[in-house]
Structures are given as C-alpha cells and as structure tokens.
C-alpha cells in the first residue's frame, strides 16, 4: 500500500483550530513537511506519528502567553464592550431598572438559599456530640414520606425504647409575646421536655437550663432564653436570670441563658428564642412535635443493630 503524500486536509483544519492564529501557517507547514519526510523514508504509522505531534502541541499552545499586541486588543475590546453596554443602559432607563431589580432579587435569593444551606447542612450543629443525635419521624406503611410525630407518638416511643441514652422533644409556636420596658415584643417560642438540653449536651451560658424536677406540676412556670434574644432585648443584662417575665400572659421565671448560636429546633422560617417546659405541649393528635431527638450511646446503638421501638416502624435519621 502506498502512503499518502500529504496528511488529509481535514486533519490540518483541526490543527489550525488548536494552535495560535499567528503560527498556523508555520505549524501546519512543519507538520506537512514532517509527514513527507517520513513518507519518503518509508516510516510506518504516519497517521499515529502525525497525531502524536499534534497532541504534543496542545500543552505548548495552551501555555503560550498572549503577546503584548493580543493583550492590547483584548483590553481595548473589553473597554469598548463596557462603553457600549453603559450607553445602552443609560438610553433605556426602564430596562436598566428592571435588570437591576432582577439582579437584586436573584442575589437576595442566592444569599438566603446559602444561609439556609449553611445553617442546615454545612455548619456543624452547636451541640456536644451531634453525631450521636438521632431525629425520629413517623412513617406509615402506605406512604413513602415520613411525617413529624405527634406528642402521643413521642410519649409512646419514650416509654418503649430501651436502646437510647435519652429522648427529648420540642414543639414550635405560637410566638411568645412579652414587654420590655413597656414596649411589646415577640419572639419564636418552643415547648420542650425538661431533659432537652441534657440530651443535646448544652449547658447554660448563664444560670441553668431545665432539670428533671422541672417536669413536676407546680414548677412549670420557667423559661430559658436564647443568647440572641438576651443580647437583643435585654442588652446582655445578667440580672435577667431569676426575674419574672410575663410571656404570653403567663408569668414565668427566667432560669437561664443559652450559649451563643445554640437553638432548637433549627428552622429556616425563624429562630426559637424562648423555651418553656413540656407540660405546655399541645395534646391534640394533629399537632406535630418537631422531630423528637434522641441521644444514643454509640456502643449499644451499634450492637443492637436497630432501634427497639415497639411501636410503629420509624424512619430514623442521624444528623
């Protein structure tokens, strides 16, 4: 079989796109000359050798720094484009306003989305051992989507489990209303079991959190405040601990302030700043308890292989 005298024109067209415009003619000339020299010498696999040479040009071509002339052309073109864009914006204020508004909305949406993702998925949970916490949700056999548990579910699970070190729950809302120096204020409120902060491994920054005895009747008019609320509404006044505060028409004693950034449940819709005790749980069937959380002792959890809740099948997710 006779070797081709020249590389196919289409191959050379490919090369022309790979190399700097200022060197196209010289480089394709070199490749053609090499091909002919090899063909004359009876070298085999001309195509393989051709493409090996072309491949060797790629890193060289990509590393080549632009010449001063090319840089100047680029910056001139960029400046001209910017001037044209500015002239266009100035000549059409309505479109400009719309474009700026769209930019503002999309930037705000991006910022909010990142804030939520950061709080929920990126930033570590502000608890002592977040990898040992489990949130439990209810799942019906007929549904693929888990739903929040009801207070009754939680109390049933709490009585029947033998594997976890502790179980606790919280229920959001309604918001707390209270007065600060005669000015009405509102804040997100959660009703929690007395052992919630023990299960989370959170200690108060000031005062104390709830203790086991606080579940008893007659000792339920207590409140724990978030650090953010304490700083925002009470200017970090340490004497707030021990004072009585009328929260949603009920007079409660503030027993402690949480450390900065600690809250529960973590919600994208608003922060929880006031915590009152579990006896305030709504007992209705339809009222959800935001995922009951449980602290596991890792050894027993692993050895058991599965949770020993005797009630309905649970979809448990560890965070």
């Amino acid at each position, binding site marked *: 079989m006779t070797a081709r005298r*020249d590389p196919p024109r289409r191959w050379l067209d490919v090369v022309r796109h790979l190399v700097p415009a200022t*060197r196209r*003619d*010289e*480089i*394709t*000339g*070199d*490749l*053609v*000359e*090499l091909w*002919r*020299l090899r063909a004359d010498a009876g070298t085999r696999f001309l195509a393989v050798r051709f493409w*090996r*040479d072309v*491949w*060797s*040009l*790629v*890193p*060289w*071509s990509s*590393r*080549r720094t632009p010449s001063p002339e090319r840089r100047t052309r680029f910056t001139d073109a960029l400046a001209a484009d910017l001037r044209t864009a500015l002239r266009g914006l100035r000549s059409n204020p309505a479109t400009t306003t719309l474009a700026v508004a769209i930019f503002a909305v999309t930037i705000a949406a991006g910022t909010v989305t990142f804030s939520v993702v950061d709080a929920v998925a990126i930033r570590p949970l502000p608890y002592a051992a977040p990898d040992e916490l489990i949130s439990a949700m209810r799942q019906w056999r007929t549904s693929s989507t888990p739903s929040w548990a009801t207070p009754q579910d939680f109390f049933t699970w709490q009585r029947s489990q033998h594997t976890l070190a502790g179980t606790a729950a919280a229920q959001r809302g309604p918001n707390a209303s209270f007065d600060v120096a005669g000015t009405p204020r509102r804040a997100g409120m959660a009703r929690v079991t007395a052992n919630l902060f023990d299960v989370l491994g959170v200690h108060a920054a000031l005062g104390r959190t709830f203790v086991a005895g606080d579940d008893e009747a007659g000792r339920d008019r207590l409140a724990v405040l978030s650090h953010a609320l304490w700083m925002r509404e009470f200017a970090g006044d340490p004497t707030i601990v021990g004072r009585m505060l009328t929260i949603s028409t009920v007079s409660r004693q503030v027993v402690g302030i949480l450390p900065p950034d600690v809250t529960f449940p973590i919600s994208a819709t608003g922060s929880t700043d006031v915590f009152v005790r579990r006896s305030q749980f709504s007992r209705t069937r339809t009222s959800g308890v935001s995922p009951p959380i449980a602290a596991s002792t890792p050894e027993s959890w692993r050895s058991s292989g599965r949770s020993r809740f005797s009630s309905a099948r649970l979809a448990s997710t560890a965070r």
Partner: protein
Amino acid sequence: MLLTLHGLREDAYGVSIQQVLERETRRGVSLGAVYAALDRLEAKGLARSAASPGTAMRGGRSRRLFALTADGLRSLDAMRRVRERLYGLAGLHPAKGRS
C-alpha cells in the same frame, strides 16, 4: 538546543531542529517540545525568530527561522567553558565530535 540552532545556521526551524535532535539523541522528539524550548529561548533573549517564505516541500507554507542572538552566543560560550572546567576537574577531556 543552543548548539543545534548554532549548527543549523540559517536553516534552523521547527522541523530541521526536531530532525537533528532525533538523529543525534536517538530519541523521539515531539514538535511541541521543540516549540516550547524555542519559545523559552526567545523569551530569555537568547534566540530570535522571523517568518520566511515557504518551500515546495511544505506546500508553500511559511517557516519560522530561528537564530542565536549575541546573548545566546555568549551563553553558549559560557556553558562550554563551565563544561570544560568540570571535565578538567574530573581529570577527563570533553568528548570530541559530540556535545
């Protein structure tokens, strides 16, 4: 590379340099490697280049001819002297005919 440029005189361009290097080193030398080395020499001011008319062997396409600058010649001379001193230090003489 400097020696190859010097040896090829007025006929130093991509293909001729690649052919000499392959023949003398008995190893495959890619065109990309030759261009990269020539670019570096130009950037350091040791070589200069200019386009020249094409030949029939290249289908009429132009060539970029390279030549050593005065700095390139001085650098070549300095390298030769260093090499000779090192050989002398080792009690050897540089091989003749190859460099």
